[in-house]
């Protein structure tokens, strides 16, 4: 029997063209139908040096299905190299050319001697969603563009890999804040996405002494590939550190593994915690007076945010979790480890977690569960209606995002925790004003 999926929270693998877009002066070349490119390019904050409307696309049609689209792809790459001034060209495939068997790799190989690097990421929709597509893009860049050389490792240099750009609206702010925190404890951070990064940051990847993956599962495959190719060890920190408790734990772990000065790390942690708890103390009256805002909360997001925010709301704010939903189609092999993290909360609290991609079932739960008061729901815009119908408090923290603009705001770290508190209580206080 056919299965219906209501309101999924991800795109197809070719949606990772946004990951390419997040790399300064890199451009995707799409071998797909024009509709795919048009739909996937729909994003707020997607303009800039390159925007989706100028991404070269083969715009394949029925003729290319019958006779193959490799000639058209060759011409499209050739002309893209001629007229678009980019540092890196990433050829990405949609479903159609992969179904009919276009040999894209061979076409891309013909440009091995081009002045600018051209790589190929296989991103057909049937290969997975845009989280998988992100991994394919990183794999293509590090596997095909970076050459295997015996680069001397730079002491203290750490590559940071965290959120999936654009899928996570806080991707830029988060990675910049993680970078600032690492540099405060004496490390040098390198990341490829966002302002002033791009090809120079990609070129530094092999020199890093450590790869730091801050994600429950997205990107682990890439860490293994980098370890194999460049001999770079990696630290997989599965929890997005939000708020003082998790961030201090995170910094201690990174300092230990990266060989940073532990005394300096403790000084940095103390400085941040002092300020963090100063702010918490100042607003203790608000927390007390608004204590009826929610007895229980639900987070609906990808594994990164559902886990990170659940830890924060329990460990730092002392709230009680109802059922939490992970809606990113997490691969089965990661689900057990992620579920264990939800059992590892302060005060002996355990959170129930469900891996669920069907919004109908998620909304059914929110609609029928007894939250013992106003529900607090942090999720995608899809949750707004059901939360409002249940007189709850809703905050849009995950895709799709339709009611807020995030330029470089972030939820990660000490400051990010404070920002999240501000956002939650700004919603809550509207009830009493």
């Amino acid at each position, binding site marked *: 029997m056919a299965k219906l999926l209501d309101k999924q929270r991800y795109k197809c693998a070719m949606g990772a063209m946004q990951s390419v877009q997040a790399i300064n002066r890199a451009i995707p070349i799409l071998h797909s139908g024009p509709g795919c490119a048009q739909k996937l390019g729909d994003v707020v904050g997607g303009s800039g040096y390159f925007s989706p409307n100028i991404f070269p696309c083969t715009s394949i049609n029925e*003729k290319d299905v*019958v*006779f193959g689209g490799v000639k058209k792809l060759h011409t499209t790459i050739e002309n893209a190299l001629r007229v678009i001034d980019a540092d890196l060209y990433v050829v990405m495939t949609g479903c159609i050319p992969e*179904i009919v*068997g276009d040999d894209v790799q061979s076409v891309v190989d013909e440009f091995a001697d081009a002045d600018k690097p051209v790589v190929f990421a296989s991103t057909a929709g049937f290969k997975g969603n845009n989280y998988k597509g992100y991994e394919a893009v990183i794999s293509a860049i590090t596997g095909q563009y970076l050459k295997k050389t015996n680069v001397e490792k730079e002491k203290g240099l750490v590559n940071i890999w965290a959120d999936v750009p654009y899928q996570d609206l806080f991707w830029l702010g988060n990675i910049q804040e993680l970078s600032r925190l690492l540099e405060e404890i004496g490390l040098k951070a390198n990341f490829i996405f966002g302002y002033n990064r791009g090809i120079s940051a990609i070129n530094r990847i092999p020199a890093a002494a450590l790869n730091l993956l801050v994600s429950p599962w997205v990107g682990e495959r890439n860490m293994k590939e980098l370890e194999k190719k460049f001999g770079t060890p990696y630290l997989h920190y599965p929890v997005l550190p939000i708020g003082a408790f998790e961030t201090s734990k995170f910094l201690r772990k990174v300092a230990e593994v990266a060989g940073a000065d532990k005394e300096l790390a403790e000084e940095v942690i103390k400085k941040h915690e002092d300020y963090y708890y100063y702010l918490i103390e100042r607003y203790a009256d608000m927390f007390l007076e608004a204590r009826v805002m929610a007895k229980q909360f639900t987070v609906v997001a990808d594994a990164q945010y559902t886990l990170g925010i659940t830890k924060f709301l329990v460990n730092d704010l002392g709230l009680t979790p109802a059922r939490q939903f992970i809606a990113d189609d997490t691969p089965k092999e990661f689900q057990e480890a992620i579920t264990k993290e939800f059992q590892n909360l302060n005060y002996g609290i355990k959170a129930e977690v469900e891996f669920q991609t069907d919004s109908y079932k998620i909304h059914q739960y929110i609609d029928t569960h007894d939250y013992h008061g106003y529900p607090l729901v942090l999720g995608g815009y899809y949750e707004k209606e059901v939360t409002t119908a249940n007189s709850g408090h809703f905050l849009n923290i995950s895709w799709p995002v339709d009611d807020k603009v995030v330029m470089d705001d972030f939820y990660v770290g000490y400051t990010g925790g404070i920002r999240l508190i501000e956002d939650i209580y700004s919603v809550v206080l509207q009830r009493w004003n």
Partner: protein
Amino acid sequence: MSYLIAISTHNGIDVDVPFGHAEKFALIEVSNNLSWRHIGERTLNVTDLESHGDNSKCSSCGSGSCGGDEPGRVDLHAARVELIKDCRCVVCSCAGPRVFRLLAQYNIACFDIVCRIQEAIDSIVKYYDKVDRGVSLRDS
């Protein structure tokens, strides 16, 4: 299901004539068992059509070969489409967007490609066979 394919060709071996220049189309019949044969040609009687209009008024090409649809002028594209309206598809060396739109009115697919006729027909027959049987287009 048997069907017809129209081919725009000059030498009878290659697909080598643009739709807008075609004065005749070779007709291929594909039978239920996927075998195909050349069953004849359909010719556009340009002289008869031109006697009813003034092609020199076309501002695009001056001769009417582009098939422009200015008032008082013969619409050669429409005449060509009318000629092959019982075909499932047409293969020609190139075609413009207006041709695609006109053909779409009769649900006729247009494959604009330069290749051998044999190669074109083999690919098309294989494609329609998969479409008609509702099986994957995966090349296996």
